[in-house]
């Protein structure tokens, strides 16, 4: 927009530094020929113009006018920042930083999730019996302190009395049935060392681990979730779950993990006692194999003779099935021929899928966390197999038969 005539003296500065545009020069000089004052001003400005026309002088002045490092620095930065290019650059940088931060957060979240998953898996393997059970017990819970120690070794009860290792299953069952339920507080105090009160989670894990190690196969078979220590630990876990979002046991429970450890009881009864003496002496003695589970599930029994591959004997081939459904406490009886070397018993919460006979050999190998407890009795060989890990869906055991039959 051209300046009004009376304001053309504003262009004088551009005249001296020779920085006027062509239009500004035309305006200024034409006005100077009409306006004496403007002409005089331009004539006076000529001295400065000549001075600034000298390159040496100009260079000296530029050096003198160089911006102060301290004062001009921020202004220069501010000017650069507020310019369109600066704003675009800053916007780009901001978007980049935002993307990096977002990416890092997503990465951290994925790492945390992976760590949580690993921790839950670890928790499962370390303290498998912390989950509560809604299934009522098959029988009244037995005194844990009487059955969790190895049968062969003498042990002390809560009162310090030495219990002989040769106590029989019958006597134990009788005593268990006749004895009222006892609170396991004294034992609990002995077996569960107090963890620091501040670290509730650690305490629960330690307690659950104590329960798992304290529970024997027989206890797990009978006591199930009503085991006092289990119940106490479960109750505590539940109370903590309400307030502690990091309680890993909650995740295990929420996943619908079974509440009762898988356990079975089997016994071998020599058939010769049930048969006439002439029949029994005619060939290899057979045995009756009786198995029962502590909960509803599916049973499969294979037999092995010599080096031959296993053969499914329960359910029988005639049924056309590969899984025999059983309920808690139901006895499945099987007459085992005398030439049988081993039986492979499998118990599962879900029906078995088809496997080859070679695979059945592998299937007979039980889990390392599996507990076994045997009761050596003159008339009945009763053994208990249980896995305290409630997440385990299948129990398997290979039972040598030969010595018992022959």
């Amino acid at each position, binding site marked *: 927009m051209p300046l009004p005539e009376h304001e053309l003296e504003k262009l004088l500065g551009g005249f001296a530094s020779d920085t006027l545009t062509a239009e500004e020069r035309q305006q200024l000089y034409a006005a100077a020929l009409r306006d004496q004052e403007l002409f*005089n001003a331009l004539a006076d400005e000529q001295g400065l113009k000549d001075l600034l026309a000298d390159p040496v002088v100009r260079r000296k*002045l530029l050096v003198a006018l160089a911006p102060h490092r301290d004062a001009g620095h921020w202004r220069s930065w501010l000017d650069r920042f507020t310019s369109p290019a600066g704003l675009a650059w800053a916007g780009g940088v901001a978007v980049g930083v935002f993307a990096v931060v977002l990416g890092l957060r997503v990465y951290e979240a994925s790492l945390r999730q992976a760590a949580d998953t690993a921790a839950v898996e670890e928790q499962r393997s370390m303290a498998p019996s912390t989950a509560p059970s809604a299934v009522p017990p098959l029988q009244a819970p037995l005194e844990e302190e009487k059955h969790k120690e190895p049968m062969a070794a003498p042990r002390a009860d809560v009162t310090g009395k030495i219990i002989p290792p040769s106590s029989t299953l019958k006597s134990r069952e009788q005593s268990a049935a006749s004895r009222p339920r006892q609170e396991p507080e004294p034992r609990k105090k002995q077996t569960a060392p107090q963890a620091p009160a501040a670290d509730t989670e650690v305490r629960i894990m330690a307690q659950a681990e104590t329960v798992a190690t304290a529970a024997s196969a027989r206890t797990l078979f009978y006591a199930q979730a009503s085991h006092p220590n289990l119940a106490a630990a479960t109750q505590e876990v539940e109370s903590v779950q309400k307030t502690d979002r990091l309680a890993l046991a909650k995740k295990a429970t929420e996943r619908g993990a079974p509440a009762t450890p898988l356990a079975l009881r089997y016994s071998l009864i020599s058939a010769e006692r049930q048969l006439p003496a002439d029949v029994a002496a005619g060939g290899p003695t057979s045995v009756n194999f009786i198995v029962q589970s502590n909960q509803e599930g599916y049973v499969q029994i294979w037999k092995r003779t010599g080096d031959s591959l296993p053969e499914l004997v329960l359910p029988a081939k005639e049924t056309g099935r590969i899984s025999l459904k059983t309920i808690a406490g139901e006895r499945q009886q099987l007459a085992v021929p005398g030439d049988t070397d081993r039986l492979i018993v499998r118990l599962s919460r879900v029906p078995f899928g088809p496997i080859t006979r070679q695979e059945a050999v592998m299937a007979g190998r039980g889990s390392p966390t599996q507990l076994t407890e045997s009761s050596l009795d003159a008339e009945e060989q009763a053994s208990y197999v249980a896995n305290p890990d409630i997440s385990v869906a299948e129990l398997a055991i290979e039972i040598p038969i030969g010595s018992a039959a022959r």
Partner: protein
Amino acid sequence: MDRDAILSALRERILAFATLRVSKDHAEDLTQDVLAVLHDKYPHVGELTELVPLAFQVLRYKMLDAHRKALRRGEYNQASVDDLALAAPDVSHETQLDQKQRVDRLLAAIAQLGERCRELFRWKLEGKSFPEIQTLMGQTSINTIYTWDLRCRKQLLALMGGSWE
């Protein structure tokens, strides 16, 4: 506007300007000398935007020359003949010294300016036009830049004692 019209207008303005600075007789001579230079040495320059600044340049040299002659003749200061230099000093040396003094004064004056004026002068010395300076200083109106420049120049002129010479 053709060259003759421009020269005619220039004669009128130069005479009026010179009359304010020197005596009327000298002003007439000065004007005549300027126009003679323009006529004899620059007959090919006819554009307004070239002829007018050229006239200002010639006028300044003629004024300085007249000023030096007056000094040498003692027209401003009636000093004793004994005080006058016997030999005429070297003109170029005198001019150089004069310019050096002016540059020193200018540098001293610029050092006293505010940050905005210094910035504005710096961009002008770097050859930036007013519209470019307007962009650099982030102003929406170029009149703001004109006004700032006028004020800064007046401030600088005042710091130099009221004259660029």
